[in-house]
C-alpha cells in the first residue's frame, strides 16, 4: 500500500469515526432532575408583534422591580419561517427559554412528543389555576394524557370584517350587512365585486400552509356544526353534511371569482383590494384608516348570532423543559396571566385574554372601546384545534384536500374529503 493511500485511509477513518460518534450521540438518557421549586433568573420569549412587545416589556419590568434575584430577561421570538419551526429547533438544541408566550396549540402535541414541554399540572396549583381562569373552555387545551402542557393565554375569535365604504359604494347596508346566510353572503359578494370597486369580496390566503384552514374553512365549520372540532374521538368530522356545505360555499366563492385563487402579498383588506376579511381583532391595528364593521361568520341558514361559535385563533403560553428555575417561571406565568396583566394586554393589543369574565372584568375598557364588545362576547364561544397526535400532519392533509377540491376545483369535494378523512383517522390513532 502506498503512503498516500495509507494516509487517505487514515483521514477517511478519522472522519468516519467522528461522524459515527456523533450519530451515536443522538439518543441520550433523560436527566429531569430539575424540580419545580428552584428559583433564579429566567428567560422568556414573546411574539414580535409591536403591541405585544410593549405589553411584554411592561410585565417584565413590573416583575423585575420586585424580584432582584429572579430577574426575567425577555426577547422577541427569533425570526424564522414560523414560530413553530423556531421553537421546534430550539427544543432539539436544548436552548428554549423557560416560557414562550406564542405557543400555537396545534404544535403542542409535537413539542410534547419532542420532550420539550413541562406539564403545568406538576405545580400544585397548576390545573386549578388554569381552570379557574379559563373555565370549561380550558378542557380543550388538555393533552390526550389529561395534562396541561400549555396555558390558554389569549384569543382572537375569528369573525368577518367588512369595509363600510366599499359596502356603501355597492349599495349594501353598512349597519346590518346581509352576511348571515350563505345565500346572503354570496349575493352580497357578487354585488361587492360588481359595484364596490374591489378585486375580491373576500381574499383568504389560497396557499397550502397547514394553518390556513383556520382562516377559511374551520371558523365556518365550527359555526355550522355547532362547535365541532376537525377531529373528535379519533374521527374526522369534516365529511359531515355540515363540512361539505361549508366547503361548497367556499367553492362557489372561488368558482365565481368572488375569492381569488392568487396569492396576495400584503393584506388585501387593509389595501382595500377585498371588501371583507376573516380574521380576529389583532388585525385592527394594521387596518389603519379602513372604516370597518364586524359580524359573526355566516352559517347556511343564518343562526342566531348569539349562538354562533368560531375558531379561537388562540395562542398559549407554555413552559419548556430546558427551564431550570421553574418555580420562578411558574410565578411569572401567573403574574403575566393575572387580571391586571390581562387588562394591560387588552388595553395595549385589543386581544382577548382567555378568561371566563372578559366583558365584566374590564368594564372601563369596553366602555371606552364599545366596538370591541362583540369580540369579547364572541371570545366566550370559541373552539380550538383538536389536541391530537400528529396534529400538524392532520391539518396539512386536510389543507391539501381542500386546496385540490375547493380552491382549485380539481376534484369532487366529498370524495377528496373522504380520502383525507381516512388518512386523518390513521394519523390520529398513531402516537
Amino acid at each position, binding site marked *: 500500500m502506498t503512503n498516500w493511500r495509507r494516509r487517505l485511509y487514515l483521514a477517511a477513518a478519522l*472522519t468516519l469515526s467522528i461522524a459515527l460518534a456523533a450519530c451515536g450521540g*443522538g439518543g441520550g438518557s433523560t436527566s429531569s432532575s430539575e424540580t419545580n421549586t428552584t428559583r433564579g433568573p429566567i428567560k422568556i420569549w414573546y411574539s414580535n408583534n409591536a403591541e405585544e412587545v410593549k405589553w411584554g416589556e411592561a410585565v417584565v419590568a413590573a416583575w423585575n422591580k420586585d424580584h432582584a434575584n429572579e430577574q426575567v430577561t425577555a426577547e422577541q421570538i427569533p425570526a424564522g419561517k414560523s414560530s413553530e419551526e423556531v421553537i421546534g429547533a430550539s*427544543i432539539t438544541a*436544548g436552548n428554549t427559554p423557560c416560557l414562550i408566550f406564542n405557543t400555537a396549540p396545534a404544535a403542542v402535541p409535537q413539542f410534547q*412528543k*419532542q*420532550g420539550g414541554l413541562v406539564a403545568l399540572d406538576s405545580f400544585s396549583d397548576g390545573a386549578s389555576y388554569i381552570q379557574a381562569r379559563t373555565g370549561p373552555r380550558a378542557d380543550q387545551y388538555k393533552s390526550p394524557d389529561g395534562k396541561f402542557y400549555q396555558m390558554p393565554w389569549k384569543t382572537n375569535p375569528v369573525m368577518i370584517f367588512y369595509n363600510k365604504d366599499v359596502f356603501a359604494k355597492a349599495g349594501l347596508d353598512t349597519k346590518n350587512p346581509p352576511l348571515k346566510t350563505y345565500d346572503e353572503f354570496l349575493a352580497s359578494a357578487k354585488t361587492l365585486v360588481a359595484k364596490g370597486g374591489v378585486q375580491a369580496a373576500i381574499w383568504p390566503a389560497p396557499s397550502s400552509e397547514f394553518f390556513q384552514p383556520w382562516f377559511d374553512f374551520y371558523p365556518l365549520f365550527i359555526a355550522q356544526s355547532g362547535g365541532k372540532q376537525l377531529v373528535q374521538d379519533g374521527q374526522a368530522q369534516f365529511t359531515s353534511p355540515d363540512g361539505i356545505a361549508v366547503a361548497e360555499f367556499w367553492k362557489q366563492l372561488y368558482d365565481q371569482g368572488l375569492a381569488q*385563487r392568487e*396569492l396576495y402579498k400584503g393584506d388585501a383588506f387593509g389595501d382595500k383590494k377585498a371588501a371583507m376579511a376573516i380574521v380576529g381583532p389583532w388585525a385592527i391595528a394594521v387596518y389603519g384608516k379602513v372604516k370597518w364593521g364586524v359580524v359573526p361568520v355566516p352559517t347556511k341558514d343564518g343562526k342566531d348570532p348569539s349562538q354562533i361559535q368560531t375558531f379561537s385563533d388562540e395562542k398559549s403560553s407554555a413552559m419548556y423543559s430546558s427551564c431550570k428555575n421553574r418555580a420562578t417561571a411558574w410565578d411569572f406565568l401567573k403574574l403575566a396571566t393575572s387580571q391586571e396583566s390581562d387588562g394591560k394586554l387588552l388595553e395595549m393589543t385589543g386581544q382577548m385574554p382567555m378568561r371566563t369574565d372578559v366583558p365584566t372584568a374590564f368594564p372601563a375598557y369596553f366602555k371606552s372601546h364599545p366596538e370591541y364588545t362583540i369580540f369579547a362576547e364572541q371570545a366566550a364561544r370559541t373552539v380550538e384545534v383538536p389536541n391530537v397526535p400528529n396534529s400538524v400532519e392532520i391539518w396539512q392533509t386536510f389543507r391539501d384536500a381542500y386546496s385540490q377540491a375547493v380552491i382549485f376545483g380539481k376534484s369532487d369535494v366529498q370524495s377528496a374529503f373522504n380520502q383525507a378523512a381516512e388518512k386523518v383517522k390513521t394519523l390520529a390513532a398513531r402516537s
Partner: protein
Amino acid sequence: MSAIASPATGPSLGRRLFGRQPLGYLFVAPYVVFLAAIFAYPLGFAVYISFRDYFFAAPGAIVERPFVGLQNYTDALADPVFRRAMLNVVIFLIINVPLTVAVGLVLATALNAAIPFRTFFRASYFVPYVTASVAVIGVWLWLFSTGGLVNNLVGPLAPDPSWLVNSFWAMPIIALFATWKQLGFYILLYLAALQNIPDELYEAAEVDGAGPVRRFRAVTVPGVRPTTTLVVIAATITGANFFTEPYLLTGRGGPNGASVSPVLLMYTQGIEQGHAGYAAAIGVLLAIMVMAVSLVNRYLLERS
C-alpha cells in the same frame, strides 16, 4: 554502548503513518475539521436517520427512534407528491440549465465587448443575484398576476387561470425566475473565462473569413468549455435544491401541488410534521439524482 538501528528495520510507525512532514497534518487540520463537521457529519447523520423512524427531540428526552430499514425510501418512492416533486426538478432543470448556459454566455460575450455603459450593464445583471429573493418575488407576483404587467402585454394570449395559479405554467415561471435571479453569477464566471481567450484566435478566425457568429461558435464556445461544465454542474446542483420559489412565489408548491419541490417537501415533512427520517430519505434520493445528472452532464461535456 548504544544500539544502532539496523538499516533493515525501516521507518518508524509514526513516520509510516504521518510521513516525513507530520507538521503538514496540522496545516490541513482546520479544513479536515471543517469538512468533517460541516459536510461529513451531516451527510453521515442524514443517511443514518433515513433508516429510522426519527424525529428531533429535546436533549435527554427518552424517545424511540426504531430502525425501519428501507421503509422511508419505499414510502417516498410510492408517494405521488414526492414523484411530482422529482418530476418538477426535471422540468426545472430542462428549462433552467440550457437557458442559463445560453443566455449567460451570450450576455457575457456582449458585456465583454466594447459597448457603451459596459460597467453599468455588468452591475445591472448582477443586481438580482445579490437581492433577497423575498424582495424580488413581490415584483414577480405582480408581473404574473391576473391583472399584472405580463397579462396586459400579452392580452388575449394570457393563460386562464393566470401563470402562477396555472398547473402547466407554474413550474416554467419558477424556472424562469431562478434563471433570471442566478444569471448574474454565471455571467461573471463566463466573463472571467472570456478574458482568458487569446485575441489572436479571434484575429486568425477573422483572417480566415469568419463572421461574428462563426467566431462565436468556433472560438468562444470551445474556449469557455471548462466554464460551461462548471456552470452546468453548478446550475444543476443549485437548481435541484430550489425551495424559495415554490415557497413564496406559488404559495407553497401550488397550485394544488403542481410546483412542489423535494426540498420544500423535506421542509414540510422534516421540520413542520416531525418526520425527520422520511425527510432525510428524500434528501438522500435527491442527492443521488443530482450526482447522477451531474456525472452525465460532465461526461457529455468533457467527452471530446
